[in-house]
């Protein structure tokens, strides 16, 4: 039991470190800038550019988190359940079955890019459906995103407001 708590505490620590590393990697302090004419240019030569200037509503609801502990395998030795620590601005306090039917995509580790469907959750534990196989290979500290998109790729909250039917370039 002590080991379990120690593991959870360690995982929480890793979650904090991960969050800090993401934030830290992106902070640009004023010391990083040099004067160049009317404006300040980043010392690194990087400009604040991109399409992050566009302000849009989230197109789906999201929960991001990190695996804090693995659950117990089923009778066949397959793993479908894990404990999760919320990480990142898109996380929220979980209530039972908040995420039922949502799509989970693993964002790191051996299962990078793998997709599962959530069958249910508690305040701290997430279980996936068996239809896409077990989460074997998932490890503590792996990060994931769970989106309000069903198994067929359809948003469970309807199309985004103002969504354009246009397709992306090259398609």
């Amino acid at each position, binding site marked *: 039991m002590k080991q379990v708590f120690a593991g959870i505490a360690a995982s929480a620590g890793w979650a904090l470190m991960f969050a800090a*590393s*993401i934030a830290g*990697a*992106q902070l*640009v302090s*004023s010391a990083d*800038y040099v004067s160049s004419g009317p*404006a*300040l240019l*980043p010392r690194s030569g*990087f*400009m*604040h*550019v*991109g*399409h*992050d*200037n*566009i*302000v*849009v*509503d*989230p*197109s*789906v609801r*999201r929960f*991001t988190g990190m695996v804090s502990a693995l659950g117990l395998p089923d009778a066949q030795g397959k793993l479908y359940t894990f404990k999760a620590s919320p*990480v*990142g601005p*898109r996380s929220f306090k979980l209530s039972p079955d908040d995420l039922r039917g949502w*799509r989970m*995509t693993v*964002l*790191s580790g051996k299962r*990078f*890019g*793998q*997709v599962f469907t959530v069958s249910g959750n508690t305040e701290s534990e997430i279980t996936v459906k068996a239809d*896409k196989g077990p989460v074997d290979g998932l490890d503590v500290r792996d*990060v994931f*995103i769970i*989106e309000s*998109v069903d198994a067929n*790729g359809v*948003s469970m909250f309807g199309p*985004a407001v*103002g*969504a*354009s039917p*246009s*397709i*992306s*370039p*090259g*398609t």
Partner: protein
Amino acid sequence: MRARARRPGIAAAIAAALFFCIGPAWSQGARIPTDAVDAFHAALKKKDTAAALSLLDRDLVVFEFGVIDPTVQAYAFQHLPFDIDVAAVSKWDIESRHVGGEGDIRWVLTSYHVTGRQADGSPIDQVTLETMILKRSSGLFRIAHMHWSTNDAKFQAMAQPAARAKGTPAPK
């Protein structure tokens, strides 16, 4: 007898079909560099996180909005959801495209006219420049570096720290 001989073949065909249909998402990529870029944008538009990830090299580094996503995990966790949200409400028309490089390293330089509506209803109408560097492994190209920039002067001004300190309002 003939039916028995067929079974291994059918089983092999089913196994192959399953491998290609439900194999690891990361095994996607594209044989042509521009296809990888266009498929990435298509995946964003479809809110298909796994498909987008499948087109990214595991050594991906992203420069976007003056910040660096130093790993594919950081991009996937931090910026990819936002890029999906932008793609959902905007249309990206290719204005020009240049392709270069050789062997396993190629680049695709694209200018897009981006239009749509922001959350407050104001129009999105800007040129976005995109640099994509692609790396081929196992015969498939994946995106190893992305960099976006824009011609939006209001935004450029807002993005400067000095201007921000003076309370320059965000562009509308």
